[in-house]
């Protein structure tokens, strides 16, 4: 999971992501970015998220924890 924030930064086109960053505050955050993120999570972690899964998340940390939990389950 160490690469998670790096991946997220690449998708959001910023240099660095902090755990407390709010996803919807990024300028690049839109419906297509959500699709990019879903595709990246699928190839990187073998998890298929739905766009609706992502709507409930505020921060980068919460998203990271969701993926970590799903991978364990």
């Amino acid at each position, binding site marked *: 999971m160490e690469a998670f924030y790096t991946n997220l930064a690449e998708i959001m*086109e910023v240099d660095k992501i902090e755990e407390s960053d709010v996803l919807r505050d990024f300028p690049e955050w839109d419906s*297509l970015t959500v699709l*990019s993120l879903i*595709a990246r999570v699928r190839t990187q972690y073998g998890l298929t998220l739905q*766009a609706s899964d992502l709507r409930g998340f505020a921060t980068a940390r919460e998203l990271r924890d969701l993926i970590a939990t799903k991978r364990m389950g």
Partner: protein
Amino acid sequence: MAEEIISTLITGASSGIGQATAIHLSRERTLILHGRDARRLEQTRCLCSSPERHIIWQADLNCIASLAGSLTSLMSQSGLLVNSFVHCAGLAVVLPMRSTDYRVALETMTVNFLSAVEIVNVLLKKKVNRRDLTGIVFVSSIFSRSGARGHAAYCASKSALDGLMRALAVELAPTVRVNSVLPGAVRTPLSEGAFSNPAIAKGMEEDYPLGLGTPGDIADLIGFLLSDGARWITGQEIAVDGGRTINMSHRREEA
């Protein structure tokens, strides 16, 4: 060698438009049902008329290098000749261009377009298929002629398919007729992601003057294009879209 069987090859027959086309054509034709998943193909076969006479061809179109060999050996082992080819298989990856690199685009191009090149190539070989091929229908998309956010690879692959269609229509005339069907949004497993979003589903209904279509609406035209009733039609892109692409109305305000 086994007895010769004249057949119709349908790619992507395990679901959606391919499955509807298989069911429609199975009344009068022996089919080669292509798909990736043998179990789902078997389900399609059971939905067809005279299930026992149809043959299953399991292959991943993305494994492009082995496709021609796989089809050739199936045809020679089972004594199959193909007079009609319907290419329904398709992949729709929705991603912004900044996440679309050549690998993403190549997979879409391979499944949607290059596989058709390989299959037609095999079906034109005299040693494999004599001169039996007479009809080709590609299932393209209204996105072939338009743009949509997140659909760069998909739009490009469908435009490529339609370009191939026109070139083949000229090169292979008068023995083979080649046409494309351009469906609008019909509810299939491929489009389910979009339809499962209520806001998108409602917007789509408004965009379609005739409402949303079904896979059967597309299968009907494919059946016609392969029939003698269409003997003077070749090289055409025919939209079956409930009026979607001619609709210039503004969407009504949200209530």
